[in-house]
């Protein structure tokens, strides 16, 4: 019961960060600020959802796989962020 409550709280918090990421992506004025908003959804949104699901899976394989997924997204997210920032600095049509 307490674990269920924990799951729901963590997942709800994760959902909030996805909301923040999407709103930022849609409303922020230029690519670099949008990138700032997006990374929050990437790292924290998924991280909190994974955290919320951890008590609901079998250990060790299920839980470890979940954590691996999150770590992978963290690493690639940071790297892709660099790529995006580089692309954003190219000359091109501005919003």
């Amino acid at each position: 019961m307490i674990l269920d409550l924990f799951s729901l709280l963590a997942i709800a918090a994760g959902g909030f960060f996805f909301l923040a990421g999407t709103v930022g992506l849609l409303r922020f004025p230029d690519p670099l600020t949008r990138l700032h908003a997006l990374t929050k959804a990437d790292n924290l949104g998924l991280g909190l959802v994974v955290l919320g699901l951890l008590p609901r899976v079998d250990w060790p394989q299920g839980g470890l796989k979940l954590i691996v997924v999150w770590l992978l997204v963290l690493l690639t997210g940071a790297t892709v962020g660099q790529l995006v920032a580089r692309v954003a600095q190219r000359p091109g049509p501005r919003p």
Partner: protein
Amino acid sequence: MSVAWAFDAILAGTVLGVAAWIVVARETFAAVAGFIAYGLLLALVWVRLAAPDVALTEAAIGGGVTGVLLLGAAARLRGGATVPDVWPAAPLRLVAGALCTVIAAALAAVVLLLPEPAPTLAPQAAAALPATGLGNPVTGVLMAYRALDTLLEKVVLVLALIGVWSLAQDASWGGVPGPQGRAARAPDALVFLARLLPPVGIVVAVYLLWLGADEPGGAFQGGALLAAMWILMMMAGLAASPAVSDRRLRLALVVGPAVFLAIGLAGFFSAGAFLAYPEPWAKPLIVLVEAAKIVSVAAALALLVAGPPQRSPR
């Protein structure tokens, strides 16, 4: 109805919206970006349809490898003069639209009027499963029940590759695919990603291959993932694209179909039929074929993306 129904409705609506965008988008690059998103969304649809094997394939092929193929084509086509945007006249478009609506409506009617109870081959497939020693019915169907399809499909991949290669100019036949000197400009972040991702990708691909016997996964899914990793390394300039005439490359391409065919022919003697497996050896043989297949699938997919040879052999 329920939360599950609401989820499916949102998902179906999003997929249709993206599909409509792909058709009407003005810029080709935007349409291709939409197509990548479409592939990832379809993977969710397949999970909802209780088909994780297909979801893995769709994510890897639809979103990943096809996406790169189309992006490359869009970038290369962009160099020349712009294509005159001659859409058919409005009445013709209207007729085409009406025709397509009729076809879609007919299909929708078929979906709504599907026979009840649904015809199914699942019991037969499940009954044949113990003889193969496998736990994943989809792999069972691919490798035993419909093995001929799978074998021919390997051959189709190789034939398509021969087709693509034969489009090369005479001077570059047997040469190296891809335009020259492109990878030299790879940005640091891409190089880092190409160092980071492939080791993980290879582990996941082998894991999927191993898992394929009993859980969703298999040689196609693993092979597509391997191909994606190889393409990433070629994009970053960490791996040179191989010359088409390279003997090791050609060996990698044919090892899958060849092992499959050899074991299939051996089936005449050991089990009395083409592509039949002798009972106690079924599972090890199938795993062997899958292992050979993953190499060929990965090589064929990556080279199909790389395209015809464009630089002459040294």
